[in-house]
């Protein structure tokens, strides 16, 4: 038995990092689903993809660069520049498809320039792409200092088209679990990249260069051309990720995707690609992205952990994966020359250190899990009050123009407000009540503002799902000019339509605070 496992491991050695990543992802999600009711909602699983199409696309491009042994730090800058430039061009009235084409051309041109610097001028990849990062990010602020919103119908259509999952949704009512078009795009990019990496001469050249550039050159492979192409491809993917992000968030800003290049590299490393190049799989990168997503989801659902734990967990995971990789790669580096040199890696000491490092990382992870689980078993957390949607509906019946309920969050609040056309605003949280007298004009401004944001159109729709640990549930019912519409959404998941939160902030601006 033991022998069999050993044989299996040694024949499939190169797949082990991939397996490890996939396994870790499923275990993490499984543990989460065991503890948190909300994570069993299939939509939460789908949200892992829905909130990360740009990360998948950018990481796929980055994987090629890292496979050749290079590095691309310009990703975040190119993404930000793409969002700002496309938002500015759309505002100037350009056709969206031409804008997208232009952005992709820009990405290709930037990538090719970086590749040319690196390949022919022998500039270190680190320095060349870093300079590109600064230039692109700086250029964003020459275009605009502030965020530019995109409200072109094509972009709206692309961001709002729901692709319902058969079996988990009802095609008649168009309700149920869904993914967005962008996720499909990300998967198309992923599939094409896998084909290119594993079934084309270009892909083989990429792996060969990462393995040993000198021998690749001696083999007659087009090393220089491939290296330029790899950076061009990464530039293209970054621009595509930028377009995806601008569709997803519906605006462009120079501060978007700050530190994104690090997230991309972390995802690639966790996906099992060696940063020294030559080994790894594009498919693994997908799992790297998913692990990042599941870490964030777990922290969000727990509701007690602060967001910085994400950084620590990701750092520890990176260490574990590097440990696994270098342990697997060790026999490979035991080349004759190394042995002869007497510099043979001291396997014992090395694995001891690796083991120590892994144990340390495990302790950090353990501490994380421990903290994650403790508050959910001990019920020190507050208990949720019942959701009062029937009462809210009756408020509208009673003449209110807006009924607004905010429910949940770390302190388990339950606030229900009613705004009347004559300016009376009443709120209560079950125990306490608050009242405020606004002018009828203020209410009218609020209502027309809400209507202008597209409240009564198809643009705004309910995105209710099981709330996470620290999320708020919002229930907003608006009645204006003979129309009435109720929308229910949960924050935390970023799946609400773009103008929805503007409506929420409009209402929040008028209502009084509870004492």
């Amino acid at each position: 038995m033991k022998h069999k496992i050993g044989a299996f491991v040694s024949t499939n050695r190169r797949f082990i990092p991939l397996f490890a990543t996939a396994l870790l992802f499923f275990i993490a999600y499984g543990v989460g689903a065991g503890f948190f009711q909300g994570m069993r909602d299939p939509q939460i699983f789908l949200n892992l993809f829905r909130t990360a199409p740009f990360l998948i696309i950018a990481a796929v491009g980055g994987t090629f660069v890292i496979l050749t042994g290079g590095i691309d730090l310009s990703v975040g800058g190119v993404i930000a520049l793409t969002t700002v430039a496309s938002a500015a061009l759309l505002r100037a009235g350009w056709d969206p498809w031409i804008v997208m084409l232009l952005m992709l051309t820009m990405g290709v041109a930037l990538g090719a320039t970086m590749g040319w610097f690196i390949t022919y001028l022998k500039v270190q990849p680190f320095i060349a792409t870093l300079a590109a990062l600064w230039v692109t990010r700086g250029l964003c602020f020459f275009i605009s200092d502030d965020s530019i919103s995109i409200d072109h119908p094509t972009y709206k259509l692309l961001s709002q088209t729901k692709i319902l999952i058969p079996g988990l949704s009802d095609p008649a009512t168009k309700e149920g679990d869904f993914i967005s078009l962008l996720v499909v795009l990300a998967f198309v990019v992923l599939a094409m990249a896998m084909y290119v990496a594993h079934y084309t001469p270009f892909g083989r050249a990429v792996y060969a260069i990462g393995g040993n550039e000198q021998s690749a050159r001696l083999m007659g492979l087009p090393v220089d051309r491939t290296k330029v192409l790899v950076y061009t491809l990464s530039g293209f993917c970054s621009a595509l990720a930028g377009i995806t992000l601008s569709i997803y968030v519906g605006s462009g800003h120079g501060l978007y995707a700050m530190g994104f290049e690090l997230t991309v590299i972390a995802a690639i490393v966790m996906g099992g690609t060696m940063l020294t190049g030559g080994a790894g799989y594009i498919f693994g990168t997908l799992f790297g992205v998913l692990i990042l997503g599941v870490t964030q989801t777990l922290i969000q659902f727990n509701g007690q952990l602060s967001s910085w734990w994400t950084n620590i967990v990701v750092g520890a995971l990176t260490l574990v994966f590097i440990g696994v990789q270098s342990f697997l790669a060790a026999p490979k580096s035991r080349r004759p020359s190394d042995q002869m040199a007497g510099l043979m890696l001291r396997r014992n000491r090395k694995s001891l250190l690796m083991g120590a490092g892994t144990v340390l990382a495990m302790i950090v992870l353990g501490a994380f899990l421990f903290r994650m689980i403790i508050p959910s078993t001990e019920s020190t957390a507050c208990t949720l009050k019942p959701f009062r949607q029937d009462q809210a509906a009756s408020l509208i019946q009673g003449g209110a123009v807006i009924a607004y309920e905010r429910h949940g969050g770390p302190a388990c609040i339950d606030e229900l407000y009613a705004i009347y056309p004559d300016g009376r605003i009443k709120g209560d949280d079950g125990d306490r009540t608050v009242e405020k007298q606004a002018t009828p004009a203020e209410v009218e401004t609020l209502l027309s503002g809400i209507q202008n944001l597209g409240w009564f159109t198809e643009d705004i729709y309910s995105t209710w799902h099981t709330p996470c640990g620290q999320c708020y549930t919002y229930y907003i019912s608006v009645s204006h000019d003979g129309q009435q519409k109720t929308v229910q959404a949960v924050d935390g998941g970023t799946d609400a339509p773009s103008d929805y939160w503007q409506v929420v902030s409009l209402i929040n601006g008028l209502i009084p605070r509870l004492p």
Partner: protein
Amino acid sequence: MKQESKTSFSWRKVTESRLFFPFSALALILLFDLIFVPGFFNVQVRDGNLYGNLIDILRSGSTVILLAIGMTLVIATGGVDLSVGAVMAISASVAALMINPYVLATQLSPETQRLISDPNFTNQPLWVVVPVTLIVASLCGLWNGILVSYARIQPMVATLILMIAGRGIAQLITNGVRIQIFYEPYSFIANGWVIVPFPLYIVAFMFTLTWLLTRRTAIGLFIESVGVNARSSFFSGIDEKRIKLLAYTFCGFCAGMAGLVASSNIKTSDANNIGLTLELDAILAVVIGGTLMAGGRFSLLASIIGALVMQATTISMYAIGVPANAVMAIKGLVVILVILLYSEQVRNVLRRLTAQRKEA
């Protein structure tokens, strides 16, 4: 031909000097200021202290200079340390926690509140705070060094781990609170003036210390030899692992110092923003200073000039009114320009061009 080389001998010696390119880059930027920014070189004297744009460049550049000193040694061994920014954040958090741990309590009595806003109040005196912070920062550097030299992880990856996790750790230390520091002696570290700003004395001290350490002992030579060829250094009896360990630990120490200066400057421990992207500034300062990323010969003074080039660019862009965020683009262009000047290929082309002109 022979005669020409004789007459231009001294000129060539100047241009081939390590300091020539960094110095001429700095001179170009200052020349730009001389032409486009009136009054850039004015230096005022107030209460016997000096103020002005030039002093500003030195003062605000001091954190990057401190980082660049440590980074030079690491890059000279053929490595790189991406975690210095995060280590700065960690050391700022440690220092702030030692000075003022009371703010972590959820409820503060008004009496405590008044006590901790007193400029002379501190939980630990400065002579405890500074050494402990520097030790913590050195330990962070030691961690990087162990990963690089003993676990043999590629430097960029090994330090990436602490770079990602470091900011989380820094926030963990202060429990996510931005601790305000009211302690007067601590804020003197960055905001004090003794004729020139106090950080300059720290820079001068660190530079002298490092220079003595590397040039008056054999350590500098060892570092260079490890950077050129780690294996042959091993055969020459140099313990390359220990040299690398030393370089990374020292880099952590310098980052700790920079973290003290940065947090004392803004009088808070802002784990999210202290030292953000400064690792990139420091690496580029070293590269502009002419130390190769592949390792080998290094010059501390050239790295410091490199840091000043970056800082002078920033300050002069502010002076002509470029928005803060857009300065990045200019900095990027300066970097590209300098890197192109260093590139062997470009130099060959230039050499060919000048040779042609001479022939013509």
